[in-house]
């Protein structure tokens, strides 16, 4: 759920105006830079997908010719691909011609009074401070002013360290040689159906570049850029850590933004060169649909990291509580010798949510190591599947994998499934898989209640205990909020 970046903070103009209403732009003392912008602001692109749509998106973003061609190539490839159906998901067929691939900005609420009370109530429960609530709800003016200052100070500090952190659109214009070198090098445009679609029509995303030997001085987060009122459907994120560089990236914010977009197909690529380390943490809480399974986001995401250099390390930590459908397998290609890949995941489904998520660890280099800890929690009538591949190539002498896969069921109508795949082509490899399925039993609940702990508190305590191993991997504030998020998501799960 990479949030669409806000161009305001980064001082961009062109794309900014497209996404924000005139009031905000005026408030910021900006002018519309081009005539066509105004027109598009009011209409957006009409639904439909063709080469023309792809060209229009590229034009709106003022992209160079090579980028337009890149997109078109992806689009042509996409046309030849069938939508995958191997996941354990029930998904209504998508009409890709019915989607608008560049939507006009939604009208932002002018004050908190206009925001959906249910949304505010959730913020209240999560303990999000009032001014942040306004920002998260997309209340335009305050949010923008707030973030402009935050964004600027923050950006200066990063620039001093030599870190590049900007929107993908900006990166394409400002750092074309870096983008050309790395974009699509981990997830090629034709990798899979949704990645190809993303490559053709992606609207924006984040670009991070940490030069050789630099440890990023702060955790990078999309949180700072949350004020974009209109989160994109197709984001593209690229993070490159050069030799010896370290970075920790937090994706998404922990307050539940309600995005009614039906389809969300993002691509995230990570590249770690020699001795580089990338830690990527996600808390995903897109709109899951209501308790009857109506609405909700289809979250179909391709995330992959490439440990390109020796002794590099990439770790994914994710807490997934949102979306009607989650189709997501953050993976690591362990190319460099002694490189390390990690995947820590908590996926919670409730009501009619469906999640098919897991990881792929591809061992290519010698003495590469991977560790997978997956915790699935199913409640209501939801279905939660872990799907993981551990592949050890011929040359991966001494490769080592440990997989632990635990499922927790709450109630009688939900399901948990585990699909572990292993392909081991090197006899010296050690691959271990442990799986457990348990229920929050009536016994556990009664035990807690007989000690004076109410039912809902008991459930969240038990769930929190179940997830502890993963929460430990999250940065502190994130862990606290992830815990609260689970509590909110589980409300009414028992009883």
């Amino acid at each position, binding site marked *: 759920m990479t949030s669409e970046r806000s161009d305001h903070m980064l001082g961009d103009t062109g794309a900014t105006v497209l996404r924000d209403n005139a009031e905000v732009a005026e408030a910021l003392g900006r002018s519309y830079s081009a005539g066509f912008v105004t027109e598009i602001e009011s209409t957006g692109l009409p639904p439909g997908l063709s080469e023309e749509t792809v060209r229009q998106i590229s034009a709106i973003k003022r992209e160079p010719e090579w980028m337009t061609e890149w997109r078109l190539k992806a689009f042509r490839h996409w046309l030849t691909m069938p939508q995958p159906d191997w996941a354990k998901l029930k998904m209504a067929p998508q009409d890709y011609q019915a989607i608008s691939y560049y939507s006009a900005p939604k009208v932002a609420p002018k004050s908190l009074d206009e925001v959906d009370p249910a949304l505010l109530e959730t913020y209240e429960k999560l303990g999000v401070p009032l001014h942040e609530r306004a920002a998260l709800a997309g209340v335009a003016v305050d949010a923008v002013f707030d973030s402009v200052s935050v964004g600027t100070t923050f950006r200066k500090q990063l620039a001093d360290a030599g870190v590049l952190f900007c929107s993908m659109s900006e990166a394409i214009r400002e750092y074309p040689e870096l983008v050309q070198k790395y974009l699509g090098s981990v997830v090629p445009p034709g990798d899979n159906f949704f990645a190809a679609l993303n490559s053709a029509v992606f609207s924006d995303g984040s670009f991070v570049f940490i030069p050789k030997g630099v440890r990023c001085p702060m955790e990078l987060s999309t949180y700072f850029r949350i004020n974009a009122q209109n989160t994109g459907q197709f984001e593209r994120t690229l993070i490159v850590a050069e030799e010896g560089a370290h970075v920790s990236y937090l994706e998404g914010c922990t307050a539940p933004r309600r995005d009614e977009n039906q389809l969300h197909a993002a691509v995230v690529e990570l590249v770690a060169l020699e001795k580089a380390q990338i830690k990527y943490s996600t808390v995903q809480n897109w709109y899951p649909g209501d308790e009857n399974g109506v609405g909700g986001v289809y979250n179909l995401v391709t995330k992959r990291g490439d440990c390109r250099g020796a002794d590099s390390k990439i770790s994914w930590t994710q807490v997934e509580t949102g979306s009607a459908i989650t189709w997501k397998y953050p993976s690591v290609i362990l190319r460099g010798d002694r490189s390390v890949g990690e995947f820590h995941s908590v996926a919670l489904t409730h009501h009619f949510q469906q999640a098919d998520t897991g990881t792929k660890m591809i061992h290519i280099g010698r003495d590469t190591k991977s560790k997978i800890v997956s915790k699935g929690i199913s409640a209501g009538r939801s279905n939660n599947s872990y799907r993981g591949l551990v592949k050890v190539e011929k040359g991966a002498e001494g490769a080592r994998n440990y997989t632990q896969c635990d499922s927790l069921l709450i109630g009688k109508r939900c399901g948990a499934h585990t699909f572990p795949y292993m392909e081991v082509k090197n006899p010296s490899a050690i691959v271990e898989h442990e799986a457990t399925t348990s229920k929050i039993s009536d016994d556990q609940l009664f035990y807690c209640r007989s*000690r004076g702990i109410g039912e809902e508190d008991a459930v969240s305590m038990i769930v929190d205990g179940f997830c502890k191993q993963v929460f430990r991997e999250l940065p502190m504030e994130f862990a606290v909020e992830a815990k609260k998020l689970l509590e909110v998501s589980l409300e009414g799960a028992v009883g």
Partner: protein
Amino acid sequence: MLKIENLHARVEGKEILKGLSLTVNPGEVHAIMGPNGAGKSTLGNVLSGRDGYEVTAGSVTYNGVDLLALEPEARAAAGVFLAFQYPVEIPGVNNTYFLRTAFNAQRKARGETELDSMQFLKLVREKLKVMQISDELMHRAVNEGFSGGEKKRNEIFQMAVLEPKLAILDETDSGLDIDALKQVSEGVNALRSPERSFLVVTHYQRLLDYIVPDFVHVLADGRIVESGDKTLAHKLEEHGYAWLAQHGEPAGAQA
């Protein structure tokens, strides 16, 4: 303090308790003995409010209130404690954290101030000394990987911290070797006081050598068929439960 009158209870449609009556005064220790299937554990579960136990007739009055009308957590806050025969494991939940949550939930329900983690830790340390429990147990997850003896001692330790007014020990002796049995009994004895009552449910007499009861009741087929002092336990040990069938009211009599 506790008055059970003509209690009838069903589990899965089957009547288990068939007119049980019992009165417990403050400070008294009552032992409930009986053969398997007599309804001993059902009694503990009904008193602490477990789901699936349907009371079809009779009443339970606890300190003047209708105990059966309260949710399990409200009964706990009112001072009812059940030491489980099979304490459950709660993986990943720290034992101390669990106990503090329970402790504070009860205090909150009673309108008392909650203790912060430092104050609570101090309390735990004091109680640990009394119970002779190593504090290593407190750093582990609730009952996870505990031996049978450790689980039972942990139950008694929880009781020491929560300080209930009515403690129900459900076959606390089951699965314990003699050393563990002694330790657990010492823990219980340390908690005996003029304000605290105990209902000690057991199959065997040997526990009562260590926790000496004021009264012994024999539960058979859902009713108390015999009551007496601690010597009754010895008689039972000697003659077995079959002896009751001839001696006392016939088991399975019309409720």
